């Protein structure tokens, strides 16, 4: 089996998980379900780009938070939930990166290939499935991050803006280092 995708570039910061939410997963999962259903209703065409990979399970691994996300982007049987790190469920592909990098991808502000070149994004498993998912998410009208923020009204948008600023600062720090 492929080892856990951890590299020196992708380990969590000192002190473990800087974006650790205090929520138990069973509280998080109904919210995630609501989010994915809303996105699916808003963007019915995006599933076409997934072809047969809409039935695949993707493990999305924000390496600096204590849980992972498990997604099946099948409009007939949508599934999106948080799962623990100990025993990852079976998946076709795993996408790992820092939470803020994954967020900027969802915000269509970051280019996935650039993150891959810099080794800030790690893909294992079915590469074709990941490429299709990437293209599907990139072709939505409004960036997914924005749609999710909108669901939570002004607090959601404020949180997104704060995260965007954090992502921008992280980007600048990275630029300064290279």
């Amino acid at each position: 089996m492929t080892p856990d995708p951890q590299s020196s570039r992708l380990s969590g910061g000192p002190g473990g998980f800087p974006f650790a939410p205090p929520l138990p997963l069973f509280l998080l999962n109904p919210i995630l379900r609501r989010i994915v259903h809303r996105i699916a209703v808003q963007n019915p065409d995006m599933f076409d780009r997934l072809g047969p990979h809409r039935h695949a399970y993707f493990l999305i691994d924000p390496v600096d938070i204590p849980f992972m996300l498990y997604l099946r982007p099948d409009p007939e049987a949508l599934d999106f939930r948080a799962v623990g790190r100990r025993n990852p469920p079976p998946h076709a592909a795993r996408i790992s990166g820092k939470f803020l990098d994954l967020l900027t991808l969802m915000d269509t502000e970051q280019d996935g290939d650039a993150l891959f070149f810099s080794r800030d994004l790690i893909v294992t498993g079915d590469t074709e499935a990941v490429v299709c998912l990437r293209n599907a998410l990139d072709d939505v009208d409004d960036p997914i991050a924005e749609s999710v923020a909108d669901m939570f009204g002004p607090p959601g948008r404020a949180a997104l803006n704060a995260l965007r600023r954090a992502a921008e600062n992280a980007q600048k720090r990275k630029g300064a280092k290279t």
Partner: protein
Amino acid sequence: MNAMVKPELICPAGTPAALRSAVDAGADAVYCGYQNATNARNFVGLNFTPEEMEKSIRYAHDGGTKVLITLNTFPPAGKVELWKEMVDLSARLGADACIVADIAVAAYIRDNYPDLRIHLSVQAAASSPEAIEYYVREFGVKRVVLPRIMTISEIKGLVQEIPCEVETFIFGNHGLMVEGRCSLTNYVTGQSTNMDGACSPAACVKYERAADGSMSTILGDYMIDRFGPEETAGYPTICKGRYKCDARDGGYYAFEEPISLNASTMLPDLISAGVHAFKIEGRQRSRAYVKKVVAAFREAVDSIMAGQEPKLADLVALTEGQKQTEGALKTKKWR
């Protein structure tokens, strides 16, 4: 001396959202293709359905942007039907030009749609005045996209000799092979870049992680590179693979390195050479890439034309392997 011609900025789009980003960022023209073998970026999950193309052309035209459709692969002998259908469709949807590589496709456009502009794809690898004159004379080609093997002074000489417009690449993935002739991917994956339209299809690519953080790129049955934990990575194509060979110690980029073309510092020279259009590579990239690169080059070209020093945005983060080159434009010995 002739007045400087303002070159068109020709921008990539792999999805309707990317096309809209390119239009909004100031593209003069967008190039894009269908979801089939007529398109040299025939990757799964990418490209346009006929309905998407129709809507996208409308969006582009409303924004004053042209749409150039890539029919830039070579039909296998006797199987030109799909290419003809895509020409018919493009003409019906109001495309501004078709970018073609194959003479059968060019002849079909010439005979059936004399008002539809033909741009000769880089895949045709036409770089001599004689070759280009042939395409202009026989098929009425209006513009040639030059292979990425010429210096600026060669381009300047060519522009003066040929009776059509010239388009050059200024940014993006950099293939050194004789374009349109590379068979490396067929050898490994069984699929043809030039006829099926896909180099290193994702279904044939695997990335394997080792416990030390290194990553191997596997294409088909071959490992084509292994990147150390701190090394930047490149595309999974054979031409950018690192191989062991007797003549060198360690891994060796036998064909070329993971690196992207970035000609931003050479734009003034290319404009004075009389180039009519600047092409940005990257239909497989995200709309974030399209937005950033198009906006940067829009501002650079506009500044140069206004007689100002262009502000050159730092685009290195978007380049393959996070390395850039001015390629053959600067010197034939660019490697």
